[in-house]
């Protein structure tokens, strides 16, 4: 009989990052460093609640109308409308022309999941292209919904820089009307973004092929400290693609407001410009919006309220917005300082190889170019923990441990060089 029915449920490998965290916490060595974490840490290695968040929480909780009632299916309107302004810009033509549909999502992942569901239902049989490499979860998010994925060239491991030619070639080779997922800024895991000139070329190539762009914006303001600067690619994309096709934006407030665990984000769909007088933008918008509602209803019923209220308060209260801008500068400048510090130390140790890419990259992560063997040795010999791809979370560095990390990297690089001579 089928006592055994659940036996064919196969056990999956544990999540790499969560595993690292567990090994790290069990490690008895006195000096140990966790460079796996995907969340900001302050100069003492502690989680940091943004001062703007603290103030917003207080305002939310002291509001006499505060309660736990359900939000509407499409989320908190103060959040979604202000979030659209943040990413598109106050003076965005897409907003002025009322072409944007915005719904609340469970942070960036939830927004990507909505995009995946939407694509599998309404834009089937297209291939979706992801950068090589990309955030580990991207493939799963789309494949789970039956969307066929492929990769486009991105990182040149020899030069540790952007493989622009390969990138443009991938765009050209993809069948017209394919879907491209673009990291809006602070590419994960490499930390390497195209420069403005390169973005121009990339987006022109995408437009020329009628491709559809999904912007994954998980680090706006966290990367450079400047919301507008980090939205450059998205806004250029809207300018270049608005006549061609709809644009999807998946926006997370995990990193830039530090609301990681509260799961605050938005999914925006920017409809293309309608030159034709007979095109009924309003009815297209209503239809798409109603389909999104139905979808959200079948996933979560309605989105979590608390984090959304905190974020909305920050985005809609001028003095909190101002504080938030300062908070983002605090985070991004500490990260940049640590990048420089690590690079400088490696240079002064004369560690074999070049290390300028650490400073050239931005956001939470750096793709060091360390091999899996070196990563293993970092953990076993030096209690420095990172993922096997060689990606380090810069947020895990601080003045107290950067020396140790630099010396550890130096040792494993030299060790490898020595052993490869035999």
């Amino acid at each position, binding site marked *: 009989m089928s006592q055994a029915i659940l036996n064919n449920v196969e056990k999956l490998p544990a999540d790499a990052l969560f595993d690292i965290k567990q090994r790290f916490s069990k490690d008895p060595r006195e000096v140990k460093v966790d460079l796996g974490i995907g969340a900001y840490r302050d100069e003492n290695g502690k989680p940091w609640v943004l001062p703007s968040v603290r103030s917003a929480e207080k305002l939310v909780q002291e509001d006499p109308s505060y309660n736990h009632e359900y939000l509407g299916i499409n989320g908190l309107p103060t959040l979604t409308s202000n979030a659209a302004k943040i990413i598109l810009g106050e003076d965005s033509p897409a907003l002025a022309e009322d072409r944007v549909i915005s719904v609340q999502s469970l942070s960036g992942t939830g927004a990507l999941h909505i995009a995946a569901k939407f694509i599998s239902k309404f834009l*089937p049989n297209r291939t979706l292209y992801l950068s090589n490499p990309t955030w580990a979860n991207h493939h799963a998010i789309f494949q789970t919904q039956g969307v066929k994925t492929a990769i486009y060239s991105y990182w040149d491991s020899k030069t540790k820089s952007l493989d622009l030619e390969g990138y443009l070639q991938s765009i050209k080779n993809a069948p017209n009307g394919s879907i491209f997922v673009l990291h809006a800024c602070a590419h994960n895991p490499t930390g390497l973004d195209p420069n403005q000139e390169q973005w121009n070329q990339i987006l022109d190539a995408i437009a020329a092929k009628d491709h559809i762009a999904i912007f994954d914006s998980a680090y706006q303001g966290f990367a450079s400290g400047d919301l507008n600067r980090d939205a450059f690619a998205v806004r250029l994309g809207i300018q270049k693609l608005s006549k061609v096709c709809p644009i999807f934006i998946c926006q997370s407030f995990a990193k830039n407001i530090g609301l990681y665990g509260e799961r605050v984000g938005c999914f925006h769909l920017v409809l293309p410009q309608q030159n034709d007088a007979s095109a009924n933008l309003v009815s297209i918008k209503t239809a798409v919006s109603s389909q999104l509602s139905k979808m959200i209803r079948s996933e979560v019923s309605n989105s979590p309220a608390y984090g959304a209220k905190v974020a909305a308060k920050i985005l809609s209260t001028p003095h909190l917005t101002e504080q938030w801008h300062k908070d983002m500068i605090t985070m991004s400048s500490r990260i940049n300082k640590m990048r420089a510090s690590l690079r400088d130390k490696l240079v002064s140790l004369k560690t074999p190889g070049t290390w300028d890419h650490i400073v050239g990259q931005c956001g939470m992560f750096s793709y060091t170019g360390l091999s899996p063997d070196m990563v293993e040795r970092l953990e076993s010999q030096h209690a420095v923990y990172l993922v096997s791809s060689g990606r380090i979370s810069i947020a895990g560095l601080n003045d107290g441990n950067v020396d140790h990390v630099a010396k550890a990297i130096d040792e494993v690089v030299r060790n490898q060089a020595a052993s490869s001579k035999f």
Partner: protein
Amino acid sequence: MSNWLQCSRRCFWNRTNYGTRALSSFDKIPRAPPDKILGLTEQFSKDKNAKKVNLTVGVYKDNQGLVTTFPTVAKAQKILDQDENMNSDLSYLPIIGSPAYRKSTLNFLFRDSCPESGPKLLEQERVSFVQTLSGTGALVVAADLLAQFVSRTVWIPNLSWPNHTNIFKRHGFNDVRQYSYYENGKLTVDKWIDNLKKNVKKNDGSRHCIILHACCHNPTGVDPTVEQWRKILDAVRELEMIPIIDMAYQGLVSGNPAKDAYVLRMCLDESRYGNWPHGLFLCQSFAKNMGLYGERVGSLSVVVPPNQPESKGNVESQLKQIVRSMYSSPPAYGCRVATLVLSSDDFKRDWYKDVESMVQRLLNVRQGMYDRLGWEGLINFEQQHGMFFYTGLKPHALNRLRDEYSIYMTMDGRLSLSGVNDHNIDYVCDAFKAILD
């Protein structure tokens, strides 16, 4: 026709036809039917009648007509607010949720609520658990797991919460069936069992899931008696169906949350049913019984068959995968509050008192309406449970209530009792009497 479509038509001639075909399918997106309750809520908020009454939504309101925070929940929030250790880390929770929440919730569900059968299941490591986005999220994750590995057929009561069908159809179930639950003001238990017996064959290799409302059936507010449940569960077990227990209103029958888990307790009674060979799924929500609606706090527990030491871990690893690609990890704030409320016996006792006073008020409303209207159903306390009463009023009567009295109910005739209070009970009952004359 939209311009973007025409543009890609033009492109069609210039280039290839890939883009065109798919873009036009985007343009043909039809409008999905609007959510009925929300439409009414919108209309209600525009209604200028000072006496207007909203009896549509399933959210508890106090005697002043306000949605308030339970005193115990407010106390927990205050503690969280003031404790540096508890409020200085907003990092991600693990994919399957907070370990502290898991521990407290499993305790509440399998020790407090099922003291006889539950502890053993926990000790034998037979419960896979994941924190979910309230009850809805639990159903979604359960549906994804089942559809992937076990079954794509589910039986849903007729009538039921409309989102049940929506969820299962959109999460891999290609065979969504209905069993008879309620007709002409009465439960149809015999027909229900008959539906199952005629259509479910236990040896033909197909496996069938069945949704059971644990208590306070939505929308009718009418539950089977314990005797009837026994007959129903006997059939469900006999046919080797997979029970999905939807427990969204635990505590709203008696005021005592642990006590209200009687359907779960009956299912887990080993002396009667042994084990559930294909697993048992419990979808649980703290939305209504802690008033944490919008914070999205709930859980899915999967009770796996015995003597399969791998199953619990395997199932959990799959649940993790499902969550990871859907939303990465669950929201933290509400779960921190719930964990605190469940953390000590004192806290739990206070919480139970909050639930009790909510239920007491709902019973008073039933009694008050009965006194004015004489509708027996209102005080059939053995079977009529929770925040809803099914009036049986037809659309034309409901339209009149709305148009003439600004009393809003859903078009199926469901009345949300918590919208009635000392200030409007006479008005509401007089209106009912007037339109029924």
